[in-house]
Structure formats: structure tokens, C-alpha cells
């Protein structure tokens, strides 16, 4: 067994997939990810195995969801932060297989991540921070106002970063 701490942002799931594949190629089979990014591996025969992450919030139909992947030959590993982890050995594939077979559905997954993860944060951000910023400034509490302003600035930078990632991916292929 070995453990490795790794951080991947929600828009870097492709890097995470490559990381898990590379571990498996070096004889470390992915077991689970826990906490804030602790990856657990166990020793195995080195093999080329494709790892895939899908973002699925529909927990009511989880069994049917997993069944479809299993039918198509994908092993379900776990769910972590609403991402489902699947893998399939390259030797079991007819040609280059992934869990999405067209561009539309690949982008739709990114949109689900956006709507599921960023939108709620954006709502909280608009509902709490923005009024606080203005209330404090207009009441002369400049220090507090600036603190909220600082958090706002961090948010804006983060959103810009995510939006940039999304559009780059959208135009990539």
C-alpha cells in the first residue's frame, strides 16, 4: 500500500485521469481517494488501464447509472465529491475507448460541473459578500469593507480562471 497527496481542481479531472493511469502503468492500482485528496494505491502487475471521471449529481438513479457503465465493461471504483471513478484495461477495448464518445456529451459534463459547483458558490457570493462589502463601506467601516472586498477580489480571480479553463477546453478540439 502507498498513499499520495495530490490536488486537482475540478476542471483538471483529465490530469487526474492521466495520473491514475500512469500509477497503474507503474504497478500501482488505485484503491480510493479520501479526505481532501489522499490517493490510496496497492501494488499490482503494471498494466495500461484507462481511468475516467464522470460528474453525476443524480443520486436517485445511482444503481442504474453504474449498471450501464458495468454493462459497457467499465469497472466502478467509487464516488468522490460527486465525481464517479471508472476504469477499463486497454486490452479489453476494441479501439480507443472513453466514457464519452462525442464532443457534445464531453462538454455537457463540463457544463454539469460548472452548474453544480460554481453556480452555488456564485449565488452565495452574490447573496452574502456583495451587500456586506457595500454596507461596511457606506457605514465607514473601511477595514471590514476592505476585507470583504479582498474576498470578492479572490472570487473574481477564481471565476475568471475557471471561465478561462472552460472556454479553452471548449475550443480545444
Amino acid at each position, binding site marked *: 500500500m502507498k498513499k499520495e497527496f495530490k490536488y486537482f481542481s475540478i476542471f483538471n479531472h483529465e490530469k487526474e485521469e492521466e495520473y491514475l493511469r500512469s500509477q497503474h502503468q507503474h504497478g500501482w492500482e488505485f484503491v480510493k481517494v479520501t479526505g481532501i485528496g489522499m490517493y490510496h494505491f496497492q501494488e499490482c502487475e503494471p498494466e495500461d488501464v484507462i481511468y*475516467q471521471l*464522470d460528474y*453525476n449529481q*443524480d443520486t436517485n438513479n445511482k444503481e*442504474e447509472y453504474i449498471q450501464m457503465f458495468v454493462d459497457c465493461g467499465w469497472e466502478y471504483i467509487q464516488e468522490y465529491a460527486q465525481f464517479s471513478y471508472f476504469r477499463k484495461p486497454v486490452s479489453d477495448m476494441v479501439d480507443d475507448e472513453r*466514457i464519452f*464518445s462525442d464532443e457534445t456529451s464531453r462538454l455537457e*459534463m463540463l457544463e454539469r460541473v460548472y452548474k453544480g459547483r460554481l453556480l452555488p458558490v456564485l449565488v452565495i457570493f452574490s447573496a452574502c459578500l456583495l451587500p456586506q462589502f457595500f454596507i461596511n463601506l457606506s457605514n465607514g467601516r473601511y477595514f471590514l469593507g476592505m476585507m470583504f472586498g479582498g474576498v470578492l477580489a479572490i472570487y473574481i480571480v477564481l471565476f475568471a480562471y475557471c471561465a478561462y479553463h472552460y472556454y479553452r477546453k471548449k475550443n480545444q478540439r
Partner: protein
Amino acid sequence: MDAHTRKVYVPMTETGFYILFCLQKPNHGYGIVQLVEKLTNGEIHLAPGTMYGSLSKMEKDGLIRFVNEVEKRKIYEITALGNEVLQLELKRIQRLYTTSREVI
């Protein structure tokens, strides 16, 4: 047919077409994957993430309906609206095909 349906499904993706085409008879997601493979002599291989997402979306948009569930597999069939969209798409494909036979 409303503007949303028209915008999203006319024309539709290749995946969308195969799903609607197959669901003229009730079937489940993996059944569609297998049927499409057979119909296209193994040339089109639909992936599960694509299939699951498309089925959920088409059900939500009223193009297909849930019939029943057998061994954790949801069976769907095409609706009247779905059939209307499919006929439009078939016409479009036929027109493309006819045009492609022309000599220019």
C-alpha cells in the same frame, strides 16, 4: 414542437439520432449500444457516459419516455414528439444523401 426542441434536436447529433431511431422499439441504454454496433457493423461504438447523459436529457425534453425497469436497467421508448423530431431528421439525412449523389 417548441423552440427549445427545435434548437437542440434539429439537426441532432449522431448519438441522438441513433438513440431515437433505436427507441422506436422499447430498449435500455446498453441494448441501444449493442443494437447500434450491430446496425453499423461495429463502426459506431456509443460510450456509457454519452448514452446516460443523452437518455436523461431526452427524457427531460419529452422525446422519450420511461417504460419500466428490468434488473437495474431502465427501458425507454420514443414519444409522439420524439417521433416528430426523428421524421424531420430522417428527411434531412435523406436530403443530404440525395444531394451528395448529384454531380457538380
